[in-house]
């Protein structure tokens, strides 16, 4: 540490980041449950990514399934059985992972970008900008989330990107509040004043001092926002608002209901997509909470 003065600021910063990443990994390794969740997540992502290589999208297109057995029970040939059109349920669930994960992540990114933008602007500029932005945020917080998403989706029409947009536009306010409070406490700290006194512009202060300090918290909140996005997509798709050209877990459940799989006791059609949803949502939630606990020690033992 004695030759600290000779190290360039950039190298010093990187060294510090490496050290904190190592510490982070150490804390994570102690949490077996969080680690298991991470493994589950990686597994689902890998499955979603390799789906086009290990299977053919056309294999469960209704046009091509005319010769398949209808309502086949799970067997060696059809791992999770078939539906009323003879389509393999396993294939549908596999491909459904792509849409569910994509919407979950894309909608979360939109949420985080919007929320961080509003939160930083409100917290950093203060004054009337803060007042106006927070009033709007409060309004959005009160609007019932699901009905708003449903109404918006039905007005905009059924497409994947519309779903992403709908979830993003309905869920940014809580992120904005979180980021704002974080920025407010940062602004009080000395080094921002020092950066300002040294003549750093606003962009410099935000980019160099505010963003890097807000990022860890935003990261944890991202991980916790993904499962909410996935659940919302599932509900929208179940209500028939999903993209008609794509298969998602909620969409499969919608079709299972339409095909009367529940009332005719064809459990293999509606159980697997639900189990997949639960696994992914649980994994994201557990991992996100572990992340949050590591990044914010005050939350431990809660």
């Amino acid at each position, binding site marked *: 540490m004695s030759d600290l003065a000779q190290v360039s600021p950039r190298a010093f910063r990187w060294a510090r980041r490496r050290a904190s990443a190592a510490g982070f990994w150490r804390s994570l390794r102690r949490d077996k449950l969080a680690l298991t969740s991470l493994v589950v997540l990686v597994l689902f992502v890998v499955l979603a990514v390799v789906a086009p290589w290990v299977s053919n999208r056309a294999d469960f297109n209704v046009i091509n399934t005319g010769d398949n057995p209808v309502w086949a029970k799970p067997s060696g040939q059809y791992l999770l059985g078939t539906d009323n059109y003879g389509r393999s349920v396993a294939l549908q669930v596999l491909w459904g992972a792509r849409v569910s994960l994509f919407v979950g992540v894309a909608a979360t990114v939109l949420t985080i970008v919007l929320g961080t933008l509003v939160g930083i602007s409100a917290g950093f500029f203060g004054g009337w900008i803060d007042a106006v932005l927070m009033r709007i945020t*409060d*309004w959005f917080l*009160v*609007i*019932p*989330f*699901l*009905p*708003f998403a*449903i*109404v*918006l989706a*039905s*007005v*905009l029409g059924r497409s994947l990107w519309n779903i992403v947009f709908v979830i993003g536009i309905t869920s940014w306010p809580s992120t904005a509040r979180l980021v704002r409070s974080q920025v407010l406490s940062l602004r009080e700290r000395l080094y921002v004043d020092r950066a300002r006194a040294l003549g750093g512009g606003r962009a410099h202060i935000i980019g160099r001092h505010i963003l890097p300090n807000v990022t860890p918290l935003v990261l944890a909140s991202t991980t916790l926002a993904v*499962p909410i996005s996935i*659940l919302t997509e*599932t*509900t929208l798709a*179940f*209500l*028939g*608002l999903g993209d008609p050209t794509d298969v998602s877990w*909620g969409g499969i*459940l919608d079709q*299972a*209901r339409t095909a009367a799989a*529940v*009332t*005719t*006791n064809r*459990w293999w059609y*509606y*159980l697997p997509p*639900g189990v997949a*949803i*639960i696994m992914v*949502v*649980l994994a994201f*939630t*557990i991992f996100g909470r572990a992340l949050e606990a590591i990044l914010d020690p005050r939350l431990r*033992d*809660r």
Partner: protein
Amino acid sequence: MSARFLLRKVLGAISTLAFVVTVNFFLFRVVNDDPTATMYRGRNMKPEQIASLRQKFNLDGSKWEQYLAYLRQLLRGDLGLSMKGSREVSAVIGEAIWPTLLLVGCSTLLAMLGITLGYRAGWRRGSGFDTSATSFSMLTYAMPDFWIGMVALGLFSVKLGWFPVSGLEDPGSAATGISQLLDQLHHMALPAIVLALAYVGEYMIVARSAMIETLSEDYLQLARAKGLRDAEVRRRHAVPNARLPVVSLSAINFGFVVGGAIAVESLFSWPGIGQLTSLAVKGPDFPVLQGLFLLLSAAVILANLVADLLYSRLDPRAGGR
């Protein structure tokens, strides 16, 4: 509670309602320029028919004029006409409100059992009971409510035959009085339990963390020193303080759950707001959706107001003193 505090809260609620009304107009008249388009798209309709349709749904004039007309219409309590059968939207929604309030009310009461469980879990933090309660609530949180419904339906109604599959009462039943009531309760049991399961975890978690917040308070130590039993310390001293955030949540949640029951109602063909919403989505019947959105938002705004007022009643320190 001071009059000023009350006034501030009520004004806040009104401003939020005004915002919702504007958003509502914006969604259905600006984003979606012509809500009647889906009615005549692909059909062979004469221009005068279209014109009369547009007039019927107040679509003539500039957006600003339409907005003012919409406001005037709302002030009269008029929500416009449904595209299906040209019935009054307010009448269509009015019919659906009671079944929903019944279902949501019962399921909320059931779900609020989670509050007691949460208090106990928090009081014995880290115990076996706490661990299982927390795991249970995380698990139910991860399940889409309608999927719980599908599984419950498949298991209890189809396989075991304990409950009817759908509806408010047996079709064609001429039962009245007690037997009609029992029939309706029988139909409501499964969807109510499903909704309660979907929400019990949230109540539990909030109650638990509110309890944990109070655990380290000095007044609990004093209560113990007085010679109170452990359960008495919890009931008389910890719970009244832990209750504050929980009561707010419960009131707010009630507003949200009305809109949250959409998928479950639709699954069980429960003739309430939720099923109406999912049918209006399928139509699409935009005037009905518009009315529903306004109603559901108003419910949440009202619930928030109630939560604020309740809080100030329960916490002697609040209330703008």
